[in-house]
């Protein structure tokens, strides 16, 4: 089945109040073309589940984010996402802050259609205090150990970005870390994948080792060719992070005029105009 579509067609699935899963990690291989499309669409009251980076930051800054579920929110070279920091300090954001490993187990539980997965992580820490919805579970075996039952992180729609894909939705991550994009797809009712380049299945299979084929076509409902679709985050080996634009973006958290100018230039424009604006 040919699942090719545009970013805007994919984002049409998203309605106000939905829970969105966003792949990548920090400021690495984030599906930014989808994030920009969410901004253009203007959907509100979103919950985002993410190993967060500028996806969460931008949606904080545009006021579209009601709630963030995260293991961290970082720009990597800038350890704390500044727009997220601002939203938290203003009390403008509902937050579910989890240990990074708990977050992974929540994704896995959702992917496996389980209510929870158990872990030792979180016990004794204030993660349980700030998340009163978290429960513990006692091992039914002889050890009787008490563990945290990390609830499934189910999402309505997931967005991921890959290096390559074919038209039917097989996706390839050519960087050295696959992150957890396959789990985001499986935790979602529907998942959409953008990629740097759509190629034939033959080219896809010969374009890297088999273990780079992280996404199979069962996992995704739509495929979008979006060159530069992770920009300004890194999408190795296709391109590194655009540190200059990231710094410019980060600085706008301290200056509303700068943010409005950034938004007008880079977000309230079509994806093609964005790519023109950032091309060297």
């Amino acid at each position, binding site marked *: 089945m040919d699942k090719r579509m545009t970013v805007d067609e994919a984002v049409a699935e998203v309605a106000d109040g939905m829970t969105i899963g966003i792949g990548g990690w920090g400021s690495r291989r984030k599906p930014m073309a989808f994030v920009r499309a969410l901004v253009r669409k203007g959907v509100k009251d979103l919950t985002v589940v993410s190993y967060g980076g500028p996806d969460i930051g931008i949606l904080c800054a545009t006021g579209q984010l009601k709630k963030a579920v995260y293991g961290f929110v970082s720009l990597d070279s800038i350890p704390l996402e500044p727009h997220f920091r601002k939203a938290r300090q203003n009390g403008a954001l509902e937050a579910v802050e989890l240990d990074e490993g708990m977050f992974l187990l929540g994704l896995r539980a959702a992917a496996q259609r389980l209510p929870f997965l158990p872990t030792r992580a979180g016990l004794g820490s204030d993660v349980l205090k700030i998340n009163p919805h978290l429960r513990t579970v006692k091992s039914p075996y002889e050890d009787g150990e008490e563990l945290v039952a990390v609830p499934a992180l189910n999402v309505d729609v997931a967005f991921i970005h890959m290096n390559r894909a074919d038209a039917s939705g097989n996706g390839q991550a050519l960087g*050295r870390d696959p992150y957890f994009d396959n789990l985001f797809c499986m935790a979602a009712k529907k998942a959409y994948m953008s990629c740097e380049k759509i190629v034939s299945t033959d080219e896809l299979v010969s374009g890297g080792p088999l273990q780079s084929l992280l996404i199979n076509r069962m996992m995704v409902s739509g495929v979008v060719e979006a060159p530069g679709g992770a920009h300004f985050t890194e999408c190795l080996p296709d391109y590194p992070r655009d540190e200059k634009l990231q710094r410019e973006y980060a600085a706008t958290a301290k200056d509303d005029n700068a943010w409005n100018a950034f938004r007008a230039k880079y977000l309230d424009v079509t994806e093609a105009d964005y790519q023109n604006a950032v091309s060297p």
Partner: protein
Amino acid sequence: MSRDQATRADVCALAIAECFRDDGEIMVSAMGTSPSLGARLAKSTFEPDLLMTDGFNLLLRRALPLGTAPSDQDVEGWMPFGAVFDTLWWGRRHVMMGASQIDRFGNQNIACIGRWEQPKAQLLGVRGAPGNTINHVTSYWVPNHNVRALVAKVDMVSGVGYDRAAALGPKTSRFHEIRRVVSNLGVFDFNTPDQRMRVVSLHPGVELQQVIDNTGFELVVPDGLDTTPVPTPEQVRILRELDPQGYAQKEVVE
């Protein structure tokens, strides 16, 4: 000062390296400049079996200078984030993290200052600290030892300390160990009957009163305090090789 002479930063780096002594064949994750340097010193000298990454996803067979990108010949394995989580739950890991705040039992905060619901200052968030501390050995590095960092009560427990671990009971806390805290003033551990923080040694030139004045709680002070060992000329030479730009020298204030 002569380049060959050991500085306070070098003393700290050696004290950090000593945290990993006898760790053997486990993964060390050292967050920040001085921890990275200290862990590399340990691997280069007395703990060659340690596994360490490039900070991303490559396991490296030798300790490279800070800021040096690995070549293919430096790689011995693959450690993407999925494998990092598996390793930390497996327990074959010793992490050294920073601490924006740490208390007498080793409860650590990197999450926020003020109420979590609406923090006065949002910091990094809990990151992996809850899972790290309950699953494997953890040490801490405090580059600026003062009463804002070493506090009576942390604003939010990210990394679990000994009182919290004890309250969980011996079964749940059996993998919990806060091995040591190294600051710019001294070395500290929790080898006391009630597992409160104790002074192990003071760095050369540091007076006990200076440490007491800069700590927001009562430290256990044993008789006959040691002085933190100063790196040998050979260790100083290795430290200069591992940190040619002197990043650690800028981090540690004398």
